[in-house]
């Protein structure tokens, strides 16, 4: 099992969600996050006072998937969330050692 963590542009969320459910991903967790990478920050002006805001709003998707669709899922997110502009985000993949469905007690692949 793999945990896929993708940080993407907020307006790409719906497209990405649809693409992932299309390949059989059963669920995901989404958070509004802030951060910076190569895009750096931006400038805001309030009554003439300029502030450089170094953290830009992004959306973080976390999805647990079985090993056999992990690579497909990564490629699906990459193509769905891509705009070609700087700031498209990143995808991280990590191992999951255990998964449990709370309602039934099912574990691992069955719990996904």
């Amino acid at each position, binding site marked *: 099992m793999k945990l896929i963590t993708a940080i993407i542009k907020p307006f790409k969320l719906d497209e990405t969600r649809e693409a992932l459910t299309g390949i059989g991903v059963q669920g995901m967790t989404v958070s509004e996050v802030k951060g910076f990478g190569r895009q750096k920050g931006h400038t*805001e*002006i*309030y*009554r*003439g*006072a300029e*502030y*450089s*805001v170094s953290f830009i709003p992004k959306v973080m998707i976390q999805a647990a998937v079985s090993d056999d669709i992990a690579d497909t899922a990564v490629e699906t997110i990459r193509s769905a969330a891509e705009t070609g502009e700087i700031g498209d985000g990143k995808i991280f993949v990590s191992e999951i050692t255990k998964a449990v469905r709370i309602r039934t007690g099912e574990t691992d692949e069955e719990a996904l």
Partner: protein
Amino acid sequence: MKIMKTRYAASVMAARIAAPMAAFAAVMTPAIAFAADAPPKLDSGDTAWMLTSTAIVLLMTIPGIALFYGGMVRKKNILTTLMQSFAICCLISVLWMVAGYSLAFTAGGSFVGGLGKMFLSGLKVDDLSGTIPESVFITFQMTFAIITPALITGAFAERMKFSAMLWFVGLWSLVVYAPICYSVWGGGFLGKAGVLDFAGGTVVHINSGIAALVAALVIGKRVGYGKEVIAPHNLVLTVIGGSLLWVGWFGFNAGSAVAANGTAGMAMLVTQIATAGAALAWMCCEWMTHKKPTVLGIVSGAVAGLVAVTPAAGFVDPMGSLFIGIIAGTVCFWGATWLKPKLGFDDSLDVFAVHGLGGITGAILTGVFAVKAIGGTSGMLEGNAGQVWLQLYGVSVTLVYSGIATFILLKVIDAVIGLRTDEQTEREGLDLVLHGETVP
């Protein structure tokens, strides 16, 4: 206000009594002649409008000012900002009943009124103030006494102790607001000298604006000011608050006619024009200098226009009010975006730039644009240049008295209980530390 009442009393009364009785004119002629000379009696139209005005002026403070300011502070301090306006509303209501009204509106010396109406003792249900019940006049004026110190809170936002704020506001209301109010409207020396202030440009806005500047200087800058990002957390609240101010201001300005008449109508019209002109002026200035027309900018400009037209509302025509709006929007923009950073003080929500400079601009321009046919006094454009000097006199007295008295009050409170929260509290947010609550 007082001036307006006496000025209009005779002619208005005659017209009001004559009109409904026109059908009976032939038989009632002696009665009409008698009525015109009689003391004023209650007018239900005037009373209905003043009841309405009073309610919407209260809306300017809670939730108007509360939200306008609340949106501009950081999220960790929004509740403390709302709390200040709300608590001021409660505190000043009681103080106005105890002594404020008496000091501001009963016969006394040339600078402050008497104590004859302390605790509003002896107030009867049929007591009149002009053509409306005195109870309505007391409440209407109470809402002005409430909003004035609430405006000042923007200067020391995000760093003042709640207890110190209550002491300051309570004392300031009695020591500064009441005498200035009396001097201009209650029969004191500024009103008698001929200083024009229709709805409170001097009494409310210059008064609170200079107090705000002094407060910002005495209390000092916020921790991290100029180094860290201290940006508004929710400008939606600020737009809602600013819009409530705009609507409430019709009660403030048109209500200051203390009658439902042509003066009130004209005050309402020029208020709308000046406000729109100032909002556009601020927006355009900002668009040109900072490349973007901001939401905070257009709302701030609207408030600047409302402030500037306040002293002028019953005295100028639509054209004059447009000029007042455009000039005020430009001056206040300059004050907030150039003057404040240049001088380096942390008047956090620009109370001095908007209310102080806007009030001064409006007071002077009232002397320029006053039209005799509208408010009974000519301005400079009609050849009465002396009115501008009179206006400057009113401005100067208010700046000096309010500035010095505010300074002394703050210094005394600082010495006794301290004005500021400690740095740790400021870092964590006043909501949590002072009030034990937070907004998620």
